């Protein structure tokens, strides 16, 4: 059975895409169908892509410090559009913002140094792959 489709997205104007690309490739090698949006995505573009692709999870990468506003907006639009899939956030996220993101309904926050297998495991769990 093919593995679920996941979206890896760069939200906002930030161009740091090393992490997003490494994660996208690791998930693809773990058998997921990965759609990488590329850089400079708006929250509504990411939601549209996820709906069109019938994705089971969204992975967001932000290193610009604008995660609270942009992820907040993403969660709001997802709710508005009735899209109820888990969202993971990675990047440069100060510890106290991590809690704020989790409160918004983000399923997990992963900073630098997180092992790839940990990401693969959580994505498997959240998308119901055993």
């Amino acid at each position: 059975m093919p593995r679920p489709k996941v979206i890896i997205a760069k939200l906002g104007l930030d161009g740091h895409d090393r992490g997003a690309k490494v994660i996208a490739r690791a998930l693809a090698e773990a058998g997921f169908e990965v759609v990488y949006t590329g850089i400079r995505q708006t929250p509504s573009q990411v939601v549209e892509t996820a709906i069109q692709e019938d994705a089971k999870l969204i992975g967001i990468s932000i290193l610009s410090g604008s995660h609270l506003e942009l992820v907040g907006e993403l969660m709001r639009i997802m709710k508005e559009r009735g899209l109820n899939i888990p969202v993971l956030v990675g990047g440069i996220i100060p510890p106290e913002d991590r809690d704020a993101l989790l409160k918004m309904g983000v399923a997990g926050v992963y900073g630098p140094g997180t092992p790839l297998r940990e990401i693969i495991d959580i994505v498997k769990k959240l998308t119901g792959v055993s």
Partner: protein
Amino acid sequence: MSSVDKVKEKYDEWVREFLIPTLRKVPEWRKFVSSFGTEIKPLYTPLDLKGDYLEKLGFPGEYPFTRGIYPTMYRSRLWTFREYSGFGSPEDTNKRYKFLISQGQTGLSVAFDLPTQLGLDPDHELAYPEVGKVGVSIPEVVSMGILFDGIDIGKITTSFTINATAAEILSMYIAVAESRGISKAALDGTIQNDILKEFIARNLYIYPPLHSMRYAVDIIAYTAKNMPKWHPISISGYHFREAGATAVQEVAFTLADAIEYTNWVINRWKMNVDDFAPGLSFFFAATTNLFEEIAKFRAARRLYAKIMKERFGAKKLESMKMKFHVQTSGAALTAQQPEVNLIRTTIQALAAVLGGAQSLHVNAYDEALALPTERSVKLALRVQQVIAYESGVVDSIDPLGGSYYIEWLTDTIEEEVMKIIDYVDKLGGMTKAVEIGYPQRAIAESAYQYQKMVEEGKIAVIGVNMFREEEELHIELHKVDPVSRERSIRRIREVRENRDKEAWGRALDELRRAADKEDENIFPYILNAVKARATIGEISGTLREVWGEYKPPSIF
């Protein structure tokens, strides 16, 4: 028997009678390889030295500059202590600059926010969440004046990390200087203006590659004629390395970019290489791999001198000198046990100094978590000061020159770099290579392989794959004051209201026409628009209308 033969004989004997028997008893605890995959031997000797001293090393200040670009190096003048910094509004950043200067910083380096770097005004919908986050918001000339309030720009050198909007920022700086009675010819500093590396790794481009190259090269031609002390470009390998490149790829793609810009200036403006090459400058990363990094800087310097002399026929020594800034590697910082980063950055900064850098930024230990605080950036500056004033590494020029290992590494990196440059030549130069995605893919591949090696424990990262701690983090982190953004927006609205509307409209019309004419230098028109108080969003908006925007393929 020559002395080399004697060494060879003794070396073979040492391997046979000492090395091998010892290894049988005490095997090596890991494989020793360079970041670019070459195996490292247990010992280097005179047998590993290739070529003639005078030809390959020579003397500092003399071709091929392996030992340094100045005859006296740090004995006459230390490198510039230049901490990259910027956040919030120009008022916030100005305060940080004055603090850094009071702590002994000797040059400034401006970090701009993403909207400024992408030509969007702070009240633009896409800009709004990003205003003042990764750098300072400077969308019009009034803000530039505030940024340098109380700072003598006729004296201090400033580096601007600005690329797709480099001409707008340089124009604002010129306008501020002139308003203070300082001529543009007297200004000393650098704009990064390296758009090729934006397409390859840093991703802050606006226009398609060919228009972007015209924009960059027009600035180089303009400053070569009008601003003799200015560095109109800082050709950057830093961002390749941060995106995952090896040391060899970093140098190779940087030099391939240098070749591309040089060809462009010569072809587009029919200039002699010696008329603009002295203004070219460079920017590299320093990772924690001490000897490899030192050798990397030396190899890059020697190779650049050869390229300028042999490929481009440069006659002036100034055209062959690779002047470079170094920033310690941000990707090498860990969010785990952040204080350990101070130790890493000290080793990295040492590599830059032992490699002969002209200017240095040391990262703060908390930058894997947020922008630095006043305290953390001060410690970063202190790292430079301890190396400069206490360590003694500045006492003698190129103190590791002649080390068998360093010279072998320098030669090896040079050879490996040349293979990639030859390949880029075959592809038809860097603009073409970028269009087909060659360097982008090569770097993404290295990044992935690096990550896998970290996961497999082949590369050690203390606190991440060794000596991990499950402990809560308690450090004070920098926060951007939300009031800053509103201040930026209020100011740009005032600027828009209070300018001479007629002069402003005329300047943008002229800019539009110039953009459409291939043979015009675009820079004077941007300068004119900035002086007429056009905002960064209006100027790049005008150019976007004529040139279009680049939409990259999303490959991973």
